[in-house]
C-alpha cells in the first residue's frame, strides 16, 4: 500500500534538495490523480524551467513536455487545442509561470482553456541560485535583494479569480489534505483552473532568511499561512506578511 504510487513514477530518484517542499507537492498531485482514477496515459504534463518544472519531468511516468522558460502554458494551449481529449496539467514554478510566463498565464485564463495549472511557489527563482521574483515576500533576502525585497508578493490568484476563472485556490504543502482535495477539484472542473501550491526552499530561501533547516521552513509556512475566513477578521496591518490560503472562487476555506 505504501508503494502504490510508484506505478506513476519512473524508476529514478528525484533531484530535489533535502527538505524541498516540491516532493510533497509531487505526492499530492499523484494522490489526486490516483484517487480520481484518471489513466495517466490520458494525461499530458507540461512544465517550464526551474525546480517546479522538475516535478513532473522526468519523475512522472507519463507524457511530459518540458518547454523553454515561461512558455509552458503556450505550448500546452497548442497541444490541448489540437487534441482536446488530452487531460493537460501544467506544473511549474512561480517565477516561470508568473514572471516570465505571466502573459501566457493571463491569456490562457482569458481563453478559459480547459487545463489545470499547478504553480509550485517557492517564493524565488531557486534553480538559478535564489533570485527574487513576483512572489518573494516583502523584506526577504535573496541573491538580488541583499537589502531586503522592496516589493510585496503579487496577488496573482486574486487577479485570476476576479477575472472569472472557474477555479482558483492557494494551499501550502503544509496543508497536504486540503491541497490534494483542491487538486482533485481543479481536475474535475471544466475550463481554466489554477492552484498556487506554496512550497519550501530551504537551500536558497531558507538559508538566506534564517530558516536554514527544512523543519524551520515548514514551521515558517505553518505560521504565515492563514485561512480566508481568518484573514477576513484581521486588519490590514495584521495581514502584512501573511499568506492567505483557501479557494478564491466559491469562498470556501
Amino acid at each position, binding site marked *: 500500500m505504501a508503494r502504490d504510487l510508484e506505478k506513476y513514477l519512473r524508476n529514478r530518484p528525484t533531484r530535489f534538495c533535502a527538505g524541498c517542499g516540491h516532493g510533497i507537492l509531487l505526492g499530492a498531485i499523484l494522490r489526486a490523480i490516483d484517487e480520481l482514477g484518471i489513466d495517466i496515459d*490520458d494525461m499530458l504534463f507540461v512544465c517550464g524551467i526551474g525546480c517546479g518544472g522538475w516535478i513532473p519531468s522526468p519523475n512522472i511516468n507519463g507524457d511530459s*513536455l*518540458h518547454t523553454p522558460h515561461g*512558455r509552458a502554458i503556450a505550448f500546452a494551449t497548442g*497541444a*490541448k487545442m489540437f*487534441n482536446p481529449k488530452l487531460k493537460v496539467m501544467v506544473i511549474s514554478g512561480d517565477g516561470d509561470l508568473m514572471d516570465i510566463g505571466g*502573459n501566457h498565464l493571463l491569456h490562457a485564463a482569458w481563453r478559459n482553456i480547459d487545463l489545470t495549472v499547478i504553480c509550485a511557489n517557492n517564493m524565488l527563482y531557486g534553480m538559478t541560485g535564489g533570485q527574487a521574483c513576483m512572489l518573494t515576500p516583502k523584506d526577504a533576502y535573496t541573491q538580488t535583494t541583499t537589502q531586503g525585497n522592496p516589493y510585496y508578493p503579487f496577488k496573482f490568484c486574486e487577479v485570476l479569480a476576479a477575472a472569472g476563472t472557474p477555479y482558483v485556490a492557494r494551499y501550502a504543502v503544509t496543508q497536504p489534505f486540503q491541497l490534494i482535495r483542491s487538486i482533485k477539484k481543479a481536475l474535475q472542473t471544466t475550463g481554466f483552473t489554477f492552484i498556487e501550491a506554496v512550497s519550501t526552499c530551504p537551500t536558497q530561501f531558507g538559508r538566506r532568511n534564517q530558516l536554514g533547516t527544512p523543519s524551520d521552513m515548514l514551521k515558517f509556512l505553518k505560521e504565515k499561512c492563514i485561512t480566508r475566513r481568518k484573514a477576513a477578521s484581521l486588519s490590514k496591518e495584521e495581514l502584512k506578511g501573511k499568506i492567505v490560503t483557501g479557494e478564491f472562487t466559491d469562498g470556501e476555506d
Partner: protein
Amino acid sequence: MVLRKSVLLPGTYYFSGNEAITEGAIAAGCNFYGGYPITPSTEIMERISVRFIDTGGVFMQMEDELGAIGSIIGASWAGAKAMTATSGPGFSLMQESIGYAVMTETPIVVVNVQRAGPSTGQSVRVASGDIMQAKWGSHGDYQIIAFCPWSVQEAYNQTVQAFNLAEKYRVPVFLLTEEAIGHLRERIEVSRNMEIFNRKKKPGAAPFGTKESDGVPPMPTFGEGEKLLITGSTHDEYGIRRVSSPSVQAKLTSRLNNKILNNRDKIIDYEVHYIDDADLLVIAYGFTARSALFAIEELRQRGKKIGMLRLKTLWPFADKTVKDISGKIEKIFVPEMNRGQIAGEVMKYVCGDVVSYSQTNGEVIHPETIAEQIRRLC
C-alpha cells in the same frame, strides 16, 4: 508517402504570394495554425482562419510570437502539421523556441515574409535581410532548411515541400519569402494530386536517437501511451536529461547537424540559366532573381555572356553546387536586398572574384540596376 487531393479544386487561380502560401499549407495537410498579426504576413493568418472552418484545422491567434511558436510546437507533438507566419520583429521573438524545435526534432513550418529592418524598420517595404538569422538566430550550432520562392507558384509549391521536409527530417523548415512576393499577384496552377510526406511512426522506438542512416528517429504523439519525455536539455535517445555527459552532448549535436548535412543532396534545390558559356555568373534568389534574369536576357541580346544560378533553397547552403559551377566561371556577381548575406556564403566556397551588390532602401532591385552593375564588371 501519400497522394492527397488538393483541397482547392485543380485549376488556375489568381493569388497573392501570401494567399498561395496559405493554400499550399492546406494542400500539404496543415491542420494547426498558431499566429500573431504582423505586417506583411498577416493575410496568411487571416486567410487560414477562414479556410480552416472548411478544412477542419485548429486556428489560434496567440498573445505574441512567443505564444505562436510555442503553440505550434505543442500542437505538432499532439500530432498536428503546424505552421506560423511572421516577419522580422516576430521572427526575432521566435528564435528561442525555434532552437527548442531543432533540439527536440519537432516538425514545424515557419514563414517569414521579410520586410525592411533592422527593428521595426519599414513594415510595408521589402528586404531579404533575415537569411543569416534563419540559420543562426537561435543560440548554438544547428541546421535548418529554408526555401526562397521567386514566384507565387513557387510560394505555393515550396510551402508544400516545406511541410514534407519538416516531417521527413523532423526539423523546423522556413519559407524565407519577401514582402514583394507576399504581395505579388500572379496566376498559379493547382494540381489534382500532391506528394505528401508524413512523419515516421514506430511504437515503442526511441524518439530521440536512431541507428538508421538518415539519422531521423520515428516520432510518437501525445496520448499514444509512449510516456514521452520531451526536453530542450541535452538528452539521450529516450529523452532522459544528460546535462553532465560530454559523450551524450557530442552524439546529440552531431546527429542533429548531420541529419541535415548528410542529406544535403536530397534537400538543396536550384536551377541554372545560360551557364554553359558564361563569363560571369549571377547568383540570385527570390524576387531579385526575377530582375536578374530579365537583365541577363537583355545583356545576352547584346552579346554579353552572362549566366545565372538561382538558389531555391538557401539553407543548407549549396556549397558544392556553387563551387562546381564557379570553377568554370571566373567572375561572380551577387545582387541582394541585404548587405551581402548570401555573397558572404559564396565567398567561403569560391576562390575567384565575388562581387556583392547590396540594395537596402526598402525597394526591389530594378533589372536596369543589375544590368548596369554587370556592365561595369565586364
